[in-house]
């Protein structure tokens, strides 16, 4: 799970920061737990979300789950390819399966999230 500048949430989202610009997706653990993803509902570009507010919805053959915003910010771009190929999340959740990009309000808040190592430890405890 090598992802530089990636941070993780307890709800199994990842966020990759480049200054205040961020990319958001769900983790390998999340896609594995969901199983085959059949549908993704993406937010509108320009939508402002608070930390932990629902950002996207992913549906699999098992369940529909909310994806929460790891940090507060504004959606700048969404991965439209997922509407026709939601399986990209299963195949490459950290790469082609990214869900949306956002401008983060306070990049410093990232200190409240988990690093890759912390997230791995967290998974072991589940």
């Amino acid at each position, binding site marked *: 799970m090598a992802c530089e500048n990636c941070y993780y949430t307890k709800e199994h989202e990842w966020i990759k920061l480049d200054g205040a610009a961020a990319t958001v997706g769900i983790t390998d653990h999340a896609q594995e*737990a969901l199983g*085959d993803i059949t549908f993704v509902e993406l937010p509108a570009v320009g939508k402002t979300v608070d930390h932990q507010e629902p950002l996207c919805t992913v549906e699999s*053959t098992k*369940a529909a*789950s909310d994806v929460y915003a790891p940090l507060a910010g504004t959606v700048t771009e969404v991965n439209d390819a997922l509407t026709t190929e*939601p399986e990209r999340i299963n195949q490459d959740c950290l790469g082609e399966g990214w869900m949306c990009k956002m401008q983060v309000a306070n990049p410093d808040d990232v200190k409240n999230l988990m690093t890759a190592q912390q997230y791995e430890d967290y998974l072991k405890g589940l």
Partner: protein
Amino acid sequence: MELLFEKSVPGRQGLRVSASDVPTSIHLRKDLLRDSDAALPELSELDVVRHFTELSRRNFGVDTNFYPLGSCTMKYNPKVCERIASYPGFAHLHPLLPQLRGGGMLTQGALEVLYEMDRLLREICGMAAFTMQPMAGAHGELTGIMMMAAYHRDRGNKKHIVLAPDSAHGTNPASAAIAGYTVKSVPSDENGLMSMTALKAMLTDDVAGLMLTCPNTLGLFNPHVKEICDLIHSVDGLAYYDGANLNAIVGKVRPGDLGFDIVHLNLHKTFATPHGGGGPGAGPVGVVEKLADYLPVSTVVKRENGTFALDYNRPKTIGYIAPFYGNFAIVLRAYVYILMAGRQGLKRIAENAVLNANYIKEKLKPYYDLPFPQTCKHECVFSASRQAQKGIRAIDIAKALIDRGIHPPTVYFPLIVKEAMMIEPTETESKETLDAFIEAMSEIAKLAETDPDAIKAAPLTTPVNRLDETAAAKQLNIKAETA
């Protein structure tokens, strides 16, 4: 299996239709008329009888097999309820009749059933009044939440949040959202119960109410339920009881006595009316005194002379939520069921439902992980985590059960349990049936160790084998294409 359309032979017919004596000179706009005849299948009566008999043989229902579908309370529907619902005096009643002049006197029996059912459910739930109108549980939820909204509107409350625990049925947040509320999910604690700490932290003046299923979807009764209701009331919120799991406590505990203000019941669960295929269900809603004025129209009242009538004169009502009087024939079946069981019978229903679930829980404990091992109520939730390490997931175990003549339990719900398998035997199953289920589940657990591929291939005994659920979800195709 061929469709009726594929079995069609041009010119074949099952009956000769007599010549029409209705004038054919009715003028319809041209765009409302067909260009060509409808492509109806042409078959003999015997073709049709064999077709539908064969289809019914492939049906999997509680009348044929054990059906431990957790949180659905798939109990046996006594045939006497069916028989009484089919009495011509009930079955042939026209729903408009009680609204016609003098028609009320011709429908006294049906109106009395609705009136008496209201009284029975009040007694069972500790509520002040019920509506029989909602057509299903989720419809009842929406009705209940609309009454919650009406209450707050009347009091000038500006509240926009409805709370529901993360173990809630998906219909709870959906109903609250449809009614216009923002839904916040309260996490569960390590014991599988709604976290009191989290609830207190989320409890603000913006909270309009809390929707709680008790026992919850893990089959656990929340011992703090009274305190929870008091907390909600402390911010002038309303406590909503989701009656999906009433079967575990019916006759034993009344939601009203616990402090709940609104209750919806799924008659097709606890009160053994037909269930599945999207209906017809029935989701009566009961409320405490302070909410009774908001109940939908109409309600049935008893006049001083002892006759029954429909009452539409309810100024504070939330209005019409369904045509006529709900699914009357379903309410009737449940009414018969309650009268038949009686007070003692209803208690025994709850006791045996709980006993059966705990029997299964204890017997299967050695074979499957049990994330919440305490005494459960009417259902227990196992995890297939141990089997998942061998590549066998809950879905595989569910499919393997089909080959053993058992309907799969609910899987992957509640969402807070990994590889969840949610088993609800209900009170109607015998010990022999439960033992056969336990035998099948333990055999599958052993097979997961020794020959996982045998499970992966299941089901093999069904008309169709393992379906591609991903493709079915992505490329939904429900239209039969015929040449």
